C-alpha cells in the first residue's frame, strides 16, 4: 500500500523529468527548444569562462528551469573550503537563478590539489562532524539549502564506523540539507560493497530527497563502474520506482556522459521515469544484487 505523501523538508518545485545539458546538444536545444521539463548543468563548466558555454546557459536558463550540479565543492575534504570557488558559484547562481544547487558527498583533493574525482569519505563520527559543519558554512554563503548526492564508490575504509546511508541520513538531518538520491549510484555501490540497495533507500530520510539521478553503468566483471553510459538497467529503474513510492513525486534527471547520442535518445530514456511519477502503485519486481 502506498504510504501517505510526505511533506518535503524544503519548499522546492517539482520539476518533472530532465536531462543533463551537454555540449553535444547545445545546438539542438537552442534551435529546437525541445519540450523537456528542465536541465541540470555541471556547475564548473560555466565558471571561469566568458565564452560560448555561458551564453548558452543563459539562453537555456531563460527558457527552462535549471539546476547547478557541482563536482568540486569537496565537502568532505580536510582542506579549508575554497571560498573563491564558492563566490563564483554564488555569482553564477545570481546570473542563472537555478532551482537549487547540488554537489556530492565526497572530497576531491587535499593539500591544495584537485584530483577531479569524487573520492570516498571514511564514514566516522569525526568525518560526520566535519562534513556537517562545512555544509552549514556553505549554506550560509549560498543563502539556500545545499543538496548533496550519494556517491558511487569502489572502496570501503576499515576506519568507517557506520554505513554510508547512516552517514548520509545523519548528515542531512544534522546539517539540515537536501539530498539528491542517485539510484544508479546506490545500485553500483550495493554490488561493489555487497549491501541491499532497497534497505539503503529505505534508510534515507525521504522528506529530504529533492531530486533523483538515474544513469547507466558498466559491468567490469569484478566491479560495476559508474560510467553514465547507455541505458539504465531495469534493476536501477526498479530502485527509482521504489524510492518514489517512499518520497512521492520528485524531480528526476537522466545522466548520459559517455558516447552521448542524439538529444532525443537521451530524452526518451529519461522519459521512462514517467511510468513511476504519479503512476498508480505497481508491485515492484525487486532484483537484488
Amino acid at each position, binding site marked *: 500500500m502506498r504510504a501517505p505523501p510526505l511533506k518535503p523538508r524544503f519548499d522546492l518545485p517539482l520539476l518533472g523529468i530532465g536531462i543533463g545539458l551537454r555540449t553535444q546538444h547545445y545546438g539542438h536545444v537552442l534551435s529546437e527548444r525541445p519540450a523537456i521539463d528542465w536541465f541540470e548543468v555541471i556547475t564548473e563548466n560555466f565558471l571561469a569562462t566568458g*565564452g560560448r558555454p555561458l551564453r548558452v546557459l543563459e539562453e537555456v536558463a531563460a527558457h527552462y528551469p535549471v539546476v547547478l550540479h557541482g563536482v568540486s565543492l569537496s565537502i568532505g575534504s580536510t582542506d579549508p573550503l575554497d571560498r573563491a570557488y564558492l563566490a563564483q558559484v554564488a555569482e553564477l547562481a545570481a546570473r542563472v537563478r537555478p532551482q537549487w544547487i547540488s554537489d556530492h558527498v565526497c572530497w576531491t583533493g587535499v593539500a591544495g590539489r584537485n584530483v577531479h574525482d569524487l*573520492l570516498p569519505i571514511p564514514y566516522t563520527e569525526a568525518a560526520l562532524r*566535519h562534513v556537517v559543519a562545512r555544509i552549514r558554512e556553505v549554506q550560509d554563503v549560498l543563502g539556500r539549502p545545499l543538496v548533496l548526492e550519494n556517491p558511487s564508490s569502489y572502496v570501503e*575504509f576499515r576506519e568507517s564506523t557506520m554505513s554510508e546511508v547512516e552517514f548520509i541520513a545523519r548528515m542531512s538531518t544534522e546539517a539540515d540539507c537536501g539530498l539528491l538520491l542517485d539510484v544508479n549510484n546506490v545500485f553500483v555501490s550495493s554490488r561493489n560493497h555487497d549491501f541491499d540497495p532497497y534497505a539503503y533507500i529505505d534508510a534515507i530520510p525521504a522528506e529530504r530527497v529533492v531530486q533523483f539521478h538515474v544513469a547507466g553503468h558498466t559491468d567490469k566483471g569484478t566491479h560495476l563502474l559508474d560510467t553514465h553510459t547507455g541505458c539504465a538497467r531495469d534493476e536501477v529503474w526498479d530502485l527509482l520506482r521504489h524510492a518514489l513510492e517512499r518520497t512521492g513525486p520528485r524531480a528526476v534527471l537522466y545522466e548520459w556522459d559517455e558516447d552521448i547520442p542524439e538529444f532525443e535518445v537521451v530524452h526518451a530514456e529519461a522519459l521512462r521515469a514517467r511510468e513511476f511519477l504519479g503512476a498508480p502503485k505497481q508491485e515492484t519486481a525487486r532484483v537484488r544484487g
Partner: protein
Amino acid sequence: MSAVELTRLQGWFQNAVVRPSLPFAIDPTSLADAERGAADAELHVLPSRTLTPSERVGIYADAYLARLVEVLTSDYAAVSALAGCGAFHELARRYLAAHPSKSFTLSVLGRHFPDWIAGADGIERRELLADIARVELAITRTFDAPRESALRPADMAALPPEVLADPRPRLIAALELLDLRHSANAIVRALRNDGDLPSLDPARTYTLVWRKDDVVWRRDLAPAAFALLDALAKRSSLADAIAAAESAHTGAAADLADLVPRWIGEWSEDGLFAAME
C-alpha cells in the same frame, strides 16, 4: 578516528590515487613499491568479494590518469597528433607530475604545458611541439576569456575628434598574439583538420588568435601588423604603435602608409577593439 587521522587518511588515499602519474620518484613496476602500496591499502581498505584492497584503490588511480590525460589530449589535439598517442601519454604523465591540478576547473589544467614542453628534457622535436602547444593554449584561453563588447566600425566612425587626435585603442580581452619559431598555426590547422601538413622546419611566424561571436579565429600576420597590434596590446598610443610597425616593416614606407588603415579597418570588422581612449 580524530580529525588529524582523517587528514592523514585523505593524504594517504590521494597519494595512492595520483602515485602512478609520478615519474621516476616511485616506479609502479617496482616490486618493493608495489608491495608497500598493497600493504598500505590493506591497512585502510577492506577487500571486496572480487578485489583486493590495492585493486580497489587502483580503480581510482586508473581513472585519475585517464581522465586528466583525456583533458590534455582534447586541449592539445595537434600536439598529441604530432607526438603520437603513446608519446603524448608519457608527456602528459610527466607534465601532471610537475603541474598537478590545483584548480576546481579542468580548463586550466594545461596552462603550463607549452612552457613545460619548452623546458623539459628528452622530448623529440621539443621546440616545434612547444610552438604548437602555444597556439592550442591560446585557443583555449581565448575561448574562455571574459566577455566584452567590441567597437563596431560604425562606433569607430562616430568617435569624437578629441579621441581621434591621439587615439589609444584598447584591444578586447579575448585576444592573444603569438611570436612563433615555426608555422605552428598552419600545422595546428592541418593536424586538427586532417589536412596536408606544411613544413615542420623552423620559420618565424606571427599569429593572432581572437574570439568573435563566441567563435575562436586565428590568422597569421605580417611582421609589421604583428608589431602594431602587439604595441596596442601593451597599451601604446596608435602613433607609437605605428612607429613600432615601421620598425618591423621590411617593405617601402609608402606601402605601410596604405597598409595601416586597411589593417585597422579589418581589425575593426573583426571586433578586436574594445574601446578607443
